[in-house]
């Protein structure tokens, strides 16, 4: 209908031609996401998955949900002048994610990588829903992003997660503690309530998106063993070996 669409398709065709020419396999990559509360140990687990896959010679890339300088500046200004609303808080993060998605995750997938995402769109779904954005609006906002092939949910009672964080980090930041939600005037109490709400959202998302739940109270190596077994069973790892893709 619009010229932009035509050029999109012609781009897709060019990419396909390019792939044929360079003998890249036109298989799409695999996306594996890790979600869970702060302190659930998901970063450690995903890092170990990355080590396992790269040591066994696979094309793998680990991507983290880090805020860019742009977002940090905007949030800082927003906070100082009290500008942020649930909608704009959500949008600022969507801008950041979109940039990372289109410049990193999507190209990795198009070129046949196993992409490991330490936090993905569900982090936004949980956090922004707690702030009052509607689920329908959020699902639409992030609809440009591929739903992961596997999503591991590191499930931990929010009480335990909060204790883990508080014992390691003496200071909790304003938004991390959900202070903008006016849950409690005291930072630590606010953090506890906030994390409990996020945990409840994650449990709901787990049903909706068929998360693979991992008991995050178990010893690290036991969790890792389970995760590796699941990945090996569900994904044809041989096709992601180095050297397969030229």
């Amino acid at each position, binding site marked *: 209908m619009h*010229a932009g669409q035509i*050029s999109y398709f012609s781009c897709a065709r060019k990419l396909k031609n390019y792939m044929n020419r360079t003998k890249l396999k036109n298989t799409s990559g695999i996306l594996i996401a890790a979600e869970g509360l702060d302190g659930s140990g998901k970063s450690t687990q995903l890092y170990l998955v990355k080590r396992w896959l790269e040591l066994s010679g696979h094309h793998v890339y680990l991507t983290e949900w880090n805020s860019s300088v*742009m977002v940090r500046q*905007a949030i800082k200004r927003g906070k100082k002048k009290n500008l942020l*609303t649930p*909608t704009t808080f959500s949008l600022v993060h969507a801008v950041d994610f*979109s*940039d990372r998605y289109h410049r990193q995750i999507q190209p990795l997938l198009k070129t046949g990588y196993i992409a490991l995402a330490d936090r993905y769109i569900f982090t936004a779904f949980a956090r922004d829903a707690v702030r009052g954005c509607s689920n329908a*609006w959020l699902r639409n906002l992030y609809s440009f992003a591929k739903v992961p092939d596997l999503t591991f949910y590191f499930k931990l009672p929010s009480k335990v997660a909060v204790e883990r964080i508080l014992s390691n980090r003496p200071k909790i930041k304003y938004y991390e503690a959900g202070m903008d939600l006016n849950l409690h005037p005291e930072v630590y109490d606010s953090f506890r309530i906030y994390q409990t709400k996020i945990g409840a959202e994650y449990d709901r998302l787990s049903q909706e998106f068929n998360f693979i739940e991992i008991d995050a109270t178990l010893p690290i190596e036991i969790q890792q063993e389970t995760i590796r077994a699941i990945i090996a069973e569900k994904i044809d790892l041989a096709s992601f070996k180095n050297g397969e893709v030229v």
Partner: protein
Amino acid sequence: MKRFYIEPLPKCNVNKLHGKLIVLEGSDGSGRTTQIAKIKNWLEGKGYAVVNCELARSQLVGPELELARRGNVLGPTTLSLFYATDFMDQFENVIIPALRAGFIVLADRYFYTLMARDLVRGADPKWVQNIYGVTLIPDLVFYLNVSPRRLIERRWQKADTMDYWESGMDMGLSRDWAISFLIYQQRLRKVFLKLQDKYGFIVVNGNKSIDSITHDIVTRIEKLLT
């Protein structure tokens, strides 16, 4: 009573929005700014309190958006979301409070411009529509319809060079800036006229004289206010 397009904004009570929201749409060079100044005069002369707002002026991401525009490194989806952030910041922090206080908000463009730019670049219409589903349906929307030839003439009246984005140079339509401008503006115009039914734009012939355009617009506003 005011209504939202698709769903209400979190924590916003429409019953308290007593003001009026009036939007002027049209490309750069369509005479929007001139008309807004004249309408504001007319309204204030009648005793109405007016608040102006325009795109890409948000406190939240205004500076970053300007940098992004200059750098031209963001993909189209990211840039759309960036503009959406800017728009929603002003919507929630300028438009809503003014309406709550009983002002007339004269908006120098609304999300329709952002939507048209996205659609011309091949964005999914549903996606864009849903993102802006949390905005208010304005009381009146005027679209200043001006031919691209006329727009380019007006460009020379206010600037020495052409603008990268206004010329749609990111779209690869032509290596020639003027040709690109004409094709791009024509496409935008088509999209606007397509959106007209859905969003109830009042199309104003922007090729007419300044005073006669003001007259047309003011007549409609007068009807709204009585």
